[in-house]
């Protein structure tokens, strides 16, 4: 089962976060998922100020600066996970450093069977 894990930066959550002694660093998290073969790929992303939105309307190409929705929260990275089920994906997301101070969103890949 493949999931896209969106790594979301949330300034409010970051301000309220209290670091804990057993929080993992991103290196520890990456080592863990790599060792267990749970991460297919992923990357950090440039800030939304570097985003470009592309749209074609009535044959007309529209290119604009910035993300398609403005919000305080923004997607700062992603990982493609291969997990047995949602509980496993939740456990992996929970150990990601952004879980404390940001958010993770798990989006299952579309499958035609269902």
């Amino acid at each position: 089962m493949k999931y896209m894990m969106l790594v979301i930066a949330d300034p409010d959550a970051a301000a309220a976060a209290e670091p804990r002694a057993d929080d993992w660093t991103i290196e520890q998290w990456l080592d863990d998922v790599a060792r267990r073969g749970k991460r297919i790929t992923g990357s950090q992303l440039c800030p939304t100020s570097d985003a470009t939105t592309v749209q074609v309307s009535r044959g007309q190409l529209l290119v604009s600066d910035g993300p398609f929705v403005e919000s305080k929260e923004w997607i700062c990275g992603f990982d493609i996970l291969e997990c047995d089920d949602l509980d496993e994906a939740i456990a992996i997301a929970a150990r990601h450093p952004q879980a404390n101070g940001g958010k993770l969103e798990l989006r299952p890949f579309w499958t035609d069977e269902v």
Partner: protein
Amino acid sequence: MHRATAAAVDTTVAAERAAIVARLIRLTNDWTLAEDCVQDAIERALLQWPREGIPRSPAAWLTTVARHRALDVLRRRQNEQTKLQQLAIMQEPDVTLGPHDPMSDDRLRLIFTCCHPAIALDNRVALTLKTVAGLSTTEIARALLVSESTLSQRLLRTKQKIANAAIPYRVPPDELLAERMGGVLAVLYLIFNEGYRQPDDHLATEARRLSSLLVELMPNEDEVRALLALITLQLSRRATRFDQAGDLVPIEEQDRRLWDEALIDEGREHLRRATASRRPPGPYRLQAQIAACHATATDTRTTPWSTIVTLYDALLVAQPSPVIMLNRAIAIGFRDGYRAGLVELEALDPTSSLAGYYLLPAARADFLRRLHRHDEARRAYETAARLAPADGPEQRLLRRRLTELTAPREM
């Protein structure tokens, strides 16, 4: 076989349904197919059993019919996935041999999956009522005050989410059990409360049935038994909580002789067993102990308010919430006097989740009325009535109080 009455057929079917649905979901991984096939089997039973009698093993009869039906449907669909599903159904033995392990009971898998935290709370409630309790969409829609088409859509989307997001069909492993158990109990208690606030307490009875099933499956979980104790104790007052017109009767005006002694005894027995392990009390045990204080008192005056306040103090530690603070303030008013109660209510944080909650002004109004401060009481009742669920029994009671305060007093 003897002819069976319709009631006996209904009871038998209700007792077996969940286990068969749960088993077919495990085998086919298809919730809608499982429910439809079991429904077909039940309809056949309702036609056949009254004529031919209830078979010696109704569960085996229903399972066989439902399995054959599932195989038929899957054969017609004919693709790679259905071949695996057919195989799973055919390889499953008719009866489970060996000692019965409750943790491997399919019903437990079903309950935990319906109550998975990745499913929105409202949808957990709806799905549990549909698949575990076996209520029809018409019944659920009526009880939850939504239209039938909205409910069907929600149920469909929830089943799709379970499939698409790969929510596992299982009892969570030990490290997740405590946390997930809390989610299951919350759903059952929400179902209870939804039913308990209405004169038709269909859902409340259903919640008791579901809790008692969970106790049967997990007899050593104290909080599960405590929830059953809590629900049973509250239901002991069902005969007196509403009058003929369907209006709420406050506890002081209820005829305590009509409280159900058998339910009170049963609730207290569950509470005793939930306490026997001497583990620290969880939130449901504390609430059940509060309910037991009310159920066994002879009137409001002799209710052990000191004990109740102490229990609320403990509950605040176990499960801090503004609503519990509110209930504690009310209990203090009955222990130390209405004036002291008002002081406690004033001290509550009005910006918390209590903002817009009718019970805060309703409690204030009640103390003010008892202190004969009628003008202030009237204003507080007006606020409370505006905030209470529209046309609900709570709102009618508040309006009745308002009329009593406004009407010229006849002495």
